[in-house]
């Protein structure tokens, strides 16, 4: 050594640090390869989602003139009618499902945590039991007997909502349960009780507002499912959007593709709304959850 250099008495240490900081060529190559794989996965995912859409779009454009399939669909009064009906049923389903699921999930989390696996299992049943079984069960139980609902329009609508509420279980319960996990349910409940609030005030002023984002995600998933549902609506002879698409598919060539894309666009708008509303309150909920 020829005396203290620019780094004083520790030039070796500085060199060592520099050596550590300098990325070695093999590392850089590995990182490059990692990036390539990431892009490849992204590309495959992108193609997987968008190629069918492009195919559907290009097929719908074969009609002459090019956008006539869309014009026919939008002009058809049945399109708006069935879509409105399905959206309305969807909204009623969401309200009914929320009223049923939120207090249940809240109570299970607060007082009956041991029941959670069983409730989760029950909410997953719609994935296991096909809708056809569900609708046959409903028809057999409610066509006659003490509650003959299937005989009237109103009764059939009630049955449809009831069936959709069951279909919404997995989405709503999971969303609400995740939302409840993010807030300190027990402390918030006890805090509001000690301040004099009863169960109703607690639910309306504390629990529901803090579950807004979770409820929205569950609600939009439910809406997407209800709007496109075919089996139950058909068997209950309801003028819903799912049977309409199917009917259109049987009678027309290009219009079903146009309807699919329009409903897909509507779903995306719904998702966009979710993201927009969610962004406003997400930060609040997340930080509250961290404490």
């Amino acid at each position: 050594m020829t005396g203290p250099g620019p780094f004083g008495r520790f030039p070796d240490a500085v060199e060592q640090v520099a050596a550590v900081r300098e990325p070695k060529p093999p590392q850089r190559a590995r990182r490059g390869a990692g990036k390539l794989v990431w892009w490849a996965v992204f590309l495959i995912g992108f193609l997987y989602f968008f190629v069918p859409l492009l195919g559907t779009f290009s097929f719908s454009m074969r009609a002459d003139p090019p956008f006539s399939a869309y014009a026919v669909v939008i002009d058809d009064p049945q399109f708006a009618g069935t879509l409105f009906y399905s959206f309305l049923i969807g909204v009623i389903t969401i309200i009914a499902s929320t009223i049923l699921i939120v207090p249940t999930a809240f109570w299970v989390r607060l007082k009956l945590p041991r029941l959670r696996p069983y409730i989760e299992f029950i909410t997953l049943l719609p994935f296991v039991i096909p809708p056809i079984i569900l609708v046959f069960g409903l028809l057999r139980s409610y066509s006659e007997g003490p509650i003959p609902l299937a005989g009237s329009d109103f009764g059939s609508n009630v049955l449809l909502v009831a069936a959709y509420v069951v279909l919404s279980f997995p989405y709503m319960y999971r969303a609400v349960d995740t939302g409840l996990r993010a807030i300190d349910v027990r402390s918030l409940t006890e805090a509001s009780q000690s301040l004099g609030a009863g169960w109703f005030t607690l639910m309306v002023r504390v629990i529901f507002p803090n579950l807004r984002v979770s409820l929205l995600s569950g609600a939009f998933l439910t809406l997407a499912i209800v709007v496109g549902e075919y089996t139950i609506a058909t068997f209950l002879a309801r003028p819903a959007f799912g049977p309409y698409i199917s009917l259109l598919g049987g009678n027309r060539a290009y219009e079903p593709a146009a309807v699919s894309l329009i409903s897909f666009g509507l779903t995306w708008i719904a998702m966009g709304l979710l993201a927009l509303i969610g962004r406003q309150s997400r930060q609040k909920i997340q930080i509250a959850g961290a404490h």
Partner: protein
Amino acid sequence: MTFLTLTGVQKRFGTSVAVQDFNLSAEKGEFVSFLGPSGCGKTTTLRMIAGFEQPTTGTITVDGIDITHRPPNRRNIGMVFQSYALFPNMTVADNIGFGLRVRKQPKDQIRKRVDELLALINLPDKGGRYPYQLSGGQQQRIALARALAIEPQVLLLDEPLSALDAKIRVALRKEIRSIQRQFGITTVYVTHDQEEALSLSDRVVVMSEGRIEQIGPPPEIYNFPATPFVASFVGTLNLIQATVVDGPTARLSVGDQEIVGARPGTGSGQRVTIAIRPEAVELGETGGTNRLRATVEDVSFLGSIVRTRVRIGEKEQLSFDQFNDPSLSASAIGETVTVSFAREATLVLEGRASADAAIEEAIAEG
């Protein structure tokens, strides 16, 4: 006048007993702390006062009215939680005013009260903020204001400072005590931090395994621990095994050396535990009439104090603190020294019953 009373309160969860035979009478405006390690039943007792748990047996009264079976929202008891439990969807002002809105008070009255409380906790301009925009210390002050807004008869605090860092903890501790005095509100404070309990309280209830070990003012708890548990949990304490030589004259033997205990006892020959605070022991013969020969085992330099650990006889150990004095040299390990302490500092712990008697005697004397 007794304001809050718990009589024969017991709580069982299945087969395990969380709290047993809990009896307490707190005066109006008194600050009582429940002190004990985790799982000692202090929080369960607090939750029974709040109404979140139902006692298996026993009664709880506030101002002469039995509230044992009243739901929590009809008790008028304010509570502050360790996790703050502020409503994340509400602003600070809405949080503080929540209890008043539930009571359907006029809006302008709520606003006035919220402003008063915000000024009281020194956060007058934070009413429009959301809880997540504030620090932990600020959130806990708001939780305190929220609990006070409803003018509760009793205020409960469940380890309110545990989630905060040391400096804020000390500052907020003082603030809590000063606000409590200002409101004259009967307060129960749960903590596992003995410094908190001793510095804040009018009386401390030391608990272990669901039972009350001792109830008393902080100096009494510290100076006259009733049971070996209290002695070991509150402060640092030397516990030494000794044998009673002669009860009436309080003569005891530690190994082959004889000392005199603080109070006369009975009998002779039985094994007892004696407790001596480190600050009561001195190196040399100036500390008092009790003297023991010992061998230095360890010397720790802790800044302002030097802690020395010595061995007496075969296995008994004794630690003591000396103020750091640069002019004195520390003892060498292995050196034989004499330690001394006053007779009054030599507390004999014989077990629960006689220790309780000793405390009663001490209260009667003092």
